[in-house]
């Protein structure tokens, strides 16, 4: 009798061990736990917006099937709803996406609450220190990696070569001070006598572009010490940037103080010029209202001479005689640090298929896929592959401006700051403020409590 029990127990124990072993993630995959046992299984990847072209999506689907015999389902989400969707779905193990893209500024908020799987063990395999470090930091908590960079974008300056030349400036500024002076000069000169013409069109609430002046002078919106974040708008270095911004709002930009970071490109296009109108007749609206704008790199698709394509759709043809680009210069010989656009990617902590999800990540960080990203104008996460972006002026400007780019503070409460539009409000008041230091302190007091998670 005892023997039977002993045998039974032994069998039970053995099965339990085997079962436990099985549940930790399938067959092969080496030390990182990535699994290739996907037969009959489906995992879901959420991509945000339509930035990732169809060609790349098809590649991911076919490559994933090749490697795991499983199915990859890609669902597209919208930027404006992604936070809501992630908030409701990530904690739900029955409905969570296995892998998801998110904005780089959204990553700290979610990683800090444990929404993502710890993938520190995959870090070096996926690219390690070659990955864009500021994005890696946005996905790191307590030294552990939870999300990694997916792709980066950047912002640079688009200008009207013809207008600049007419205003007497024939060479591109090489320092930030020179740039500030140039745009003020052009606004004053207004060679085409257009009403409300801006030397640089900088929207009052456009902090994503305006922040470059803060960064360029060594300042920041907030900094961390001993795990606690404080807003640093009144820091002396930030103040230098704020003063420069004020000068621009007052002298170079005629943008409304509630204009945000969107569609700046329409202001350097000519498309609404009414034929026959004289340049000196102010009552005839002419679309060209700025000599310079600062915008994310992809804006170049919407800038150029207007034309109509064979299918009746509008086309924009870039004309190197009229338009040009350059990265915003800093005062130290390097490009000014600008706000880096782009996304991170991570595995949901509640995913039921972490092994397969890790395999997907390996495919995404493979040289093939990284190169494909670059070829399609999306800055790859791995710096080894940035050459795939190409060598045209846009790629050059993108790479140069991104070199030095910075992210918003990786504070846990950053999502609150963005949701409350407090930065937009602050920037909108810079132009007319009579006491910048007091304004900065006032907003420091508003922002600091929001930064640290509750």
């Amino acid at each position: 009798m005892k023997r039977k029990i002993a045998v039974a127990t032994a069998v039970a124990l053995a099965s339990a061990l085997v079962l436990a072993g099985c549940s930790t993630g399938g067959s092969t995959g080496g030390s990182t736990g990535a699994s290739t046992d996907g037969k009959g299984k489906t995992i879901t990847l959420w991509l945000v917006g339509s930035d990732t072209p169809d060609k790349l999506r098809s590649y991911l689907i076919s490559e994933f099937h090749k490697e795991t015999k499983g199915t990859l389902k890609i669902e597209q989400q919208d930027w404006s709803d992604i936070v809501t969707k992630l908030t409701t779905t990530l904690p739900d193990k029955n409905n969570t996406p296995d892998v998801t893209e998110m904005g780089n500024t959204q990553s700290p908020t979610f990683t800090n609450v444990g929404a993502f799987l710890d993938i520190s063990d995959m870090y070096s395999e996926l690219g390690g220190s070659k990955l864009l470090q500021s994005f890696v930091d946005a996905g790191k908590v307590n030294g552990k990696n939870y999300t990694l960079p997916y792709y980066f974008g950047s912002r640079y300056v688009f200008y009207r070569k013809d207008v600049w030349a007419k205003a007497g400036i024939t060479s591109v500024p090489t320092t930030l001070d020179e740039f500030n002076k140039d745009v003020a000069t052009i606004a004053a000169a207004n060679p085409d006598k257009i009403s409300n013409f801006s030397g640089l069109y900088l929207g009052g609430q456009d902090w994503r572009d305006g922040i470059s002046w803060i960064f360029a002078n060594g300042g920041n919106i907030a900094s961390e010490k001993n795990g606690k974040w404080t807003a640093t708008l009144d820091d002396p270095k930030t103040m230098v940037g704020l003063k420069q911004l004020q000068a621009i709002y007052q002298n170079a930009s005629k943008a409304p103080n509630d204009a945000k970071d969107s569609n700046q490109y329409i202001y350097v296009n000519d498309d609404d010029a009414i034929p026959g109108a004289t340049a000196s007749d102010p009552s005839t609206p002419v679309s060209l209202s700025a000599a310079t704008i600062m915008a994310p790199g992809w804006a170049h698709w919407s800038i150029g001479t207007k034309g109509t394509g064979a299918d009746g759709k509008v086309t924009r043809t870039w004309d190197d005689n009229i338009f040009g680009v350059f990265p915003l210069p800093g005062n130290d010989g390097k490009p000014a640090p600008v706000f880096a656009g782009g996304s991170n990617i991570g595995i949901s902590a509640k995913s039921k298929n972490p092994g397969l999800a890790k395999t997907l990540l390996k495919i995404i960080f493979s040289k093939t896929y990284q190169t494909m990203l670059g070829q399609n104008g999306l800055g790859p996460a791995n710096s080894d592959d940035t050459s795939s972006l190409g060598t045209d002026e846009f790629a050059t400007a993108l790479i140069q401006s991104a070199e030095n780019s910075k992210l918003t503070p990786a504070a846990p409460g950053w999502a609150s700051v963005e949701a409350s539009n407090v930065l937009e409000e602050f920037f909108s008041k810079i132009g007319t403020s009579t006491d910048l230091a007091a304004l900065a302190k006032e907003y420091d007091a508003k922002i600091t409590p929001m930064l640290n998670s509750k």
Partner: protein
Amino acid sequence: MTAATTRLTVPRRRRRSFAPYALLIPSVVVMVLAMGYPLVWQLITSLQQFGLAQQFGQPAPFVGLDNYIRLATDPYLWTVVGRSLLFCFVTAAVTMLIGTLLALLMRAVPAAVRIILQITLLLAWAMPVVAAMTVWTWLFDWRRGVVNWLLTAMGLPFQQHNWLQNPLSFFAVASIIVIWMSVPFVAFSIFAGLTQVPEDVLEAAEMDGATASQRFWRITVPIIRPVISIVLLLQVIWDLRVFTQIKLLQDSGSIASETNLLGTYIYQLGAGSSDFGTASAVSIFVLILTIALSGFYIRSMLKEDAA
């Protein structure tokens, strides 16, 4: 004929009428199922410190009335409340006025004109809010808007006028849009109510010498009073909670904190900052506020029922 419902005083037989309860069961069941849980959740959450961390599994500390106290002492909340009340009253009043006039108009015009009017109102009502907002923000766009173009063509100085920058003009635009969207419902409802007013009674009164105004106030209004009251109450409730239109306008321009109404403020706290504890507290607060506002209606309705 009075508007008060005369109770069926047919003597009840022995059965302690189960009929009304039976009739209510379907509605009660569906409401309890689908609204019960969210309502209770919201009440409980408003008493907790509930942020994104709690959504992802952290326990939610019970803080009692802390959220409410913080709100009550926050001047910004009261600013938003004040703005919302003002917006609500102005918009609801104008909507009711125009809606009632249009309903009367629909009764007074020949069938062809009435159908045209009804169809255009319906089209306005049926237009998806997102699409309608796109068109409206476009119409008022400071650079390419038709409104500026028309006003400039008439000689007024509205070249590139930015309608959304100034909070007051922002709310004027918002009000116009909400009124445009709400009038059809009011007009249709009151029109439907007007069809219950018997034509012959009106004609008889007219032949007896009653003026249009007398006929309206003495005959029509008492009959349609229940409909008017409900519609007015609903307008007040909905205009107090207006969200989509304000949010989409804010996305186009304006300084958000200067143009927040209660709906967008709750959204900003919840979906934006993930501060669900405070968002829930504000929601409960708005609920109580709305109940208080409709107090007059509730009391008169209860009195009427008791009669």
